[in-house]
């Protein structure tokens, strides 16, 4: 997170921080593991009142940012989600709300309004967003027949599909990539719960078996979803990264405190140079994680030409170095670090699951290299 937030951003962040501390203290997070949805509808509605779902939505549609840079504002919320290992579909709901506000049609307005109010959440099938070879994984396909869009195929994992009333689906059609907003109660749509390492987030495999929705459900133009998808991927990655960085910050702070408190051979762990140097590395990686994701968030908000590479650099770096950081926190805790009773694993889980979502570090390194493609021929 930025070292210097504006006064308004600071109040905004702090409000969510206090809400999360009181509503989902860490033992509550632990017990939510048995909750079917992973979060309470009231919790989400109250969070929406605090602005969790409105930052990427235009004022005209009832949203609005704090600072003029909605994604940067949203990263302060996501950071607190990480700091508290908090539940709730922050990434998919915001990605879908932002998309519906930017390019959705009139039929999508009521859905947008319910996402803003927090009375429903949305899921996002991002399909082949990460393919570097233009093929992508076999996601859903779509065809247009008699005023209807027909969807077939499977997508996984889809966060919060089981809790969502609508899913924004990316599908291949004759015209190219197309996005469609599909109600989850549509005939032929099924959601198979998947297992995950995160205690409070839920994922499904979503299958479309001849699902039919009116063509008005298409978001944007048929065949025109490439740019939409790229933008959505950037949003999702930046939000997920900010959450991971928040989790890393807590894991680091906890471990540093532990090093001061824990003694061996008559001295605190913090007095051993070998461990001090590892903390120095951790601190450096942590600051670098903050720095690169903040720069990525600002670049996406500003529509800067280097947004794509910064976003992928942030994902690749936070994925790899964040994992090493939090695993080293486990190591420095010793045996207690691998118990369910200790809090550390809640942050380890968050960082780990986020690493594997929306492209692994290796996927994002490939994406960065495609940005360099124009330098392939000697100038």
């Amino acid at each position: 997170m930025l070292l210097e937030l504006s006064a308004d951003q600071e109040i905004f962040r702090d409000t969510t921080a206090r809400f999360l501390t009181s509503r989902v203290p860490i033992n509550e997070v632990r017990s939510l593991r048995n909750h079917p949805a992973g979060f309470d509808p009231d919790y989400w509605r109250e969070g929406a009142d605090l602005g969790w779902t409105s930052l990427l939505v235009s004022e005209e549609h009832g949203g609005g940012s704090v600072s003029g840079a909605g994604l940067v504002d949203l990263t302060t919320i996501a950071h607190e989600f990480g700091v508290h290992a908090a539940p709730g579909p922050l990434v998919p709901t915001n990605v879908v709300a932002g998309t519906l506000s930017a390019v959705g049609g009139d039929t999508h307005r009521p859905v947008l309004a319910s996402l803003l109010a927090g009375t429903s959440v949305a899921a996002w099938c991002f399909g082949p967003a990460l393919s570097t070879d233009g093929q992508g994984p076999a996601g859903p396909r779509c065809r247009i027949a008699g005023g209807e869009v027909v969807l077939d195929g499977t997508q996984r994992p889809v966060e919060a599909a089981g809790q969502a009333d609508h899913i924004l689906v990316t599908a291949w059609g004759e015209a190219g990539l197309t996005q469609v907003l599909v109600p989850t109660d549509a005939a032929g749509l099924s959601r198979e719960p998947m297992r995950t390492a995160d205690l409070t987030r839920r994922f499904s495999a979503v299958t479309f078996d001849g699902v039919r929705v009116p063509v008005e459900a298409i978001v944007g133009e048929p065949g025109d979803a490439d740019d939409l998808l790229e933008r959505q991927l950037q949003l999702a990655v930046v939000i997920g990264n900010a959450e991971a960085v928040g989790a890393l910050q807590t894991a680091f702070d906890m471990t540093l405190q532990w090093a001061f408190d824990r003694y061996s051979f008559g001295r605190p762990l913090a007095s051993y140079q070998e461990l001090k140097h590892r903390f120095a590395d951790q601190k450096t990686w942590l600051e670098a994680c903050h720095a690169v994701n903040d720069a990525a968030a600002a670049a996406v908000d500003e529509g800067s030409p280097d947004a794509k590479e910064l976003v992928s650099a942030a994902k690749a770096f936070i994925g790899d170095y964040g994992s090493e950081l939090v695993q080293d926190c486990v190591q420095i805790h010793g045996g207690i670090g691998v118990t369910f009773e200790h809090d550390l694993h809640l942050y380890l889980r968050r960082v780990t699951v986020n690493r594997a979502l929306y492209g692994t570090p290796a996927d994002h390194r490939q994406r960065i290299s495609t940005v360099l493609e124009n330098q392939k021929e000697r100038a």
Partner: protein
Amino acid sequence: MTDGTEDVDSFRRRARTWIHANLRPLAPDETAAPTVALPVQTEEEELAALAREREIQCMVFDAGLAGIGFPREYGGQGLTADHQRAFNAEIVGYEYPARLQAPTFSPCGAVLLEFGTEEQKRRHIPAILKGEEIWMQLLSEPSGGSDVAAALTSAVRDGDEWILNGSKVWTTGASTADWGLCLARTNWDVPKHRGLTVFILPIHQPGIEVRRIEMLNGSTEFCQEFLTDVRVPDSDRIGDVDGGWTVGTRWMFHERMLFNSPFVSIPVGASPGEVGAASIVNVARDAGRFDDRCVRDLLGEAHMLELVGQTLRRRIGRGVAAGRISEQSAAITRLFAGVSSARKATIAFEIAGSAGAAWTSDDGAAANCVDDFLMRQTSCIGGGTTEMARNVISERVLGMPRERTPDRDRPFRDVPRSASTRA
């Protein structure tokens, strides 16, 4: 321009117009700054390159673009970090005086500005900004560089003068430099930090012998200096007598800020002193491996490290400038730069394939990647080692207990030393 300060946009336009009209655009293969390994050049080549840099710097000065962050009364522009950033963006793709930036402008210029007397500043800072004076840091000694405060070079007062004796080492380019900033011991009867004083002195004078040292890649820019009864007027003392550590602490802060310093120009995207991601792309292309997925992964990693390093520098630079984090945090950027630079040198070497072992001039950028690999650790040693940076981060930034230091509270003359320097 109400308060007389030029706004960033008009400054940018002025800089652009001048750069385009006066500086030579770089050829595609030419890097504006040296890579890890110092160049292997003859003394004539070294002097010619330096002469050109001095000439450019003088032109920059005459154009009113030198010393953007230095105050006007000393020949600078008295402008802000934003102006510096604008200049850094405009200079991309043009020749610029890369070697004068560090250590001449910073740390040396920065230390003079902070601790120099009015007379010292008026004499030297304009000369530095005109390219007339190239400065060196005379810090490290054969007895040790990490423990800078354990300097053995002695300065003894003699009337209005000081007499210096001792040896400094690992000074890059001392044989072609003009002035040195020198840390010396003025009191042996107090603990090490309390008996140091900083002096400035011309490098080329009878009492100083400068010897070139051959580095493992054949470069001879590294030097050792032997000081024998060098007389320095008291007016060339910087800071208080025995107050050298106050100066030294800030000196090292400026050194760790290096290319993050507001006193230094560096083209945006350039990575002086390391193998830049852009040059690794050239290696991949010239090695014919650009489309290899494994190579792509490495290219992505190199580019990632560079972007992360840039954004980290900005975060720490702003945080320090705004007083949000301690100055000791400069060690964070130092550590990151050292380690990531070493990794990038490895990546380039890996991508070069067998051209890393043996090459001909047909191998283009893939030729001689091995030199940067062999010299890889310089990025983790020069400017203070990465271990020292880790000490600073853990102890000074995170507040972890200090290492046991048997030298802290006893007169320096009684402190144990390396075997080779025991009298």
